[in-house]
């Protein structure tokens, strides 16, 4: 091996080393950039979260205490009489999420978990659903046929689930409320018929279902119109002998069922007791004494 050769090899090794170093550096830099960008994402998420504060509160510890007491947007401070920028942007972000929740759909796999088959109202599509609530109160002819074929007639308790105005309310709460509802039926000595899911339902679809199946009481778990704090809020509407011509005040309701409101497990447990009282008093809504 000549000196020249050696030098070439050394040079080659050096180049190689330099390349590797550079590569390593590039990798490190890239990694750093990724971490940075991750941080940036985290950071930007934090920015979008609720971070405005009263700068010099009279009781600094009190602010947290008050905020913990409610999901309402309090302690947000102001510039003049207007809210701070981050508070406004957070509000707009949450509004955007709620608007998007209206257009969602419940996954079939979730319904299968609870053996709920699906029938539809005459809602046609989401836009008609919003403008024509009357169509969401009537089941299609096919739905009526399916229900007659598959459901027990004249059950003591009929359970119905519907997406209503928030499919994500069903996704978020069904796994908690449903088992606890079944337990509370047992505890209260009640028996149920054949439960099912109604797509495109409005509250008063209970009346049509009541006509078809003639249950003693019916409970409808339905997605509420989404709010900003809770796009996942569910209501449980209950009625004694639901039928056409029932007025709103003859229904009993537990609203605001979600993790930040009435907990779905508690709500489920409560429903059985209410249904039992309905059967005992042969009444629901304003005529029911709880």
């Amino acid at each position, binding site marked *: 091996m000549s000196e020249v050769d050696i030098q070439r090899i050394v040079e080659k090794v050096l180049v190689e080393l330099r390349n590797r170093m550079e590569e390593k550096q590039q990798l490190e830099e890239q990694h750093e950039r990724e971490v940075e960008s991750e941080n940036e994402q985290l950071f930007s998420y934090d920015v979008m979260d609720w971070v405005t504060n*009263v700068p010099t509160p009279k009781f600094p510890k009190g602010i947290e205490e008050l905020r913990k007491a*409610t999901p309402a947007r309090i302690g947000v401070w102001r510039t003049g009489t207007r809210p701070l920028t981050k508070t406004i942007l957070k509000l707009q972000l949450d509004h955007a999420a709620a608007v998007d929740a209206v257009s969602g759909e419940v996954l079939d796999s979730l319904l299968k978990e609870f053996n709920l088959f699906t029938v539809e109202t005459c809602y046609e599509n989401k836009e008609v659903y*919003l403008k024509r*609530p009357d169509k969401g109160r009537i089941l299609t002819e096919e739905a009526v046929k399916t229900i007659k074929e598959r459901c027990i007639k004249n059950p003591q308790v009929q359970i119905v689930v519907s997406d209503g105005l928030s499919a994500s309310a069903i996704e978020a709460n069904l796994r908690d409320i449903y088992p606890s509802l079944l337990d509370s039926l047992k505890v209260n000595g009640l028996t149920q018929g054949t439960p099912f899911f109604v797509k495109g339902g409005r509250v008063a679809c209970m009346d049509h279902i009541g006509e078809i199946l003639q249950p003693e009481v019916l409970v409808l778990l339905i997605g509420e119109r989404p709010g900003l704090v809770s796009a996942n809020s569910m209501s449980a509407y209950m009625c004694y002998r639901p039928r056409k011509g029932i007025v709103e005040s003859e229904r009993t309701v537990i609203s605001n069922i979600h993790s930040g*409101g009435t907990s779905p497990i508690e709500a489920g447990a409560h429903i059985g007791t209410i249904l039992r009282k309905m059967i005992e008093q042969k009444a629901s809504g304003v005529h029911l004494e709880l």
Partner: protein
Amino acid sequence: MKTSVRLMGKTYQFQSLKEIMAKANEEKSGDQLAGIHAQDTQERIAARHVLSELTLADIRNNPLLPPEEDEVSRVIEEGVNEKIYASIRNWTVAELREYLLSPNVTNNEISHIRRGLTSEMIAAVTKIMTNLDLIQAASKITVETRCNTTIGQKGRLAGRAQPNHPNDSLQGIKAAIFEALSYGVGDAVIGINPVIDTVESVKAILNMTKELMDKWDIPTQNCVLAHVTTQMRAIKQGGTADLLFQSLAGTELGNKAFGISVDLLDEANELILKEGTAAGPNVWYFETGQGSELSADAHHGIDQLTLESRCYGLAKRYNPFMVNTVVGFIGPEYLYNSKQVIRAGLEDHFMGKLHGLPMGVDVCYTNHMKADQNDMENLAVLLAAAGVNFLIGVAMADDCMLNYQSTSFHDIATLREVLSLRPAPEFEKWLEKMGIMEHGKLTSIAGDPTFFL
């Protein structure tokens, strides 16, 4: 009664006053849902034209819902002063509009003629008024009412503190009340919509708010917006309520859907006058909103604006302290977008004021409507210019219990500054005593809820 008109070479023939009234309305999804709307814009103007030439007597003599069939109609009929009616019965609806807008006609003249008007006449004139007409005419009318404190004076804008909580936590409700007070809001009422409509829960909220008012010596009134029967039971069991609340509909059938009747309201009225905690004489808080009759299938083919006006005819019977039209709460099937909400807000405020009612507006929308916060800010400015008695104050406009957006504490404070409006006088004095307001402006400590800890 002339029911046809020839416009641009085309003859429009209407069958009934009901049809003319419905078709004269600005476009509303609720009238479309009911299937009673004008087929096109020209038909709408034709209906408006015919309506403008009808006399007030034509309207009274052709009842949309006869008194024999409906108790709200009876309440409205009983309220008419026959002498005053006789003096204006030959006015056309157009003449009524021009009278209201004429510069010589002030609050005094309007207070006089309103006693000869029915809710249907008021609805009719509203249909032929533009948005700015509605603002100007309403701004002439002052309706002051007194519960513990007085609201409704010229140059004042009150706010309801609406500190709702998703599971009625008393601590949570209190926290939001502190925030409201720190922005100078709560002079109209501290009013909570409960989730749980039981006597115990309603009583607990009533008593907590009353204790808070006593502790801080706050000159305002409290109210829990449960069903009236629940409030009555709570009051009988020692609940401390200044105001009784109830939602109203414009037909007997609609009220049945709300679980109420004139008899029940009369009974409740007697109870609150006897066992309420307020000085009075005005001790009712009513809420209304276009579309509620149709949503209960209790509309009798009458348009939603006219039915809303009939709610005010019913409200009048009880001399309420405050009436609130919850204008965009009911959803897109009644008011589809911001344009319709803005129109309805101005209509309701004007109609209520012409009835002589202390009108406030819940300027609001739901997340399935085509509207956003900017639209609400616009309407709030228009209403403040029209002299609205009060608006709703919710933390950052977001009601975490009712799932809709209204106006915020910040918004009410801003409207007061921009339009030189003040809080209700007794409340303003209290704010000054607390150091939250000075010369009508919020001080540096305003906006700190821990002030009340």
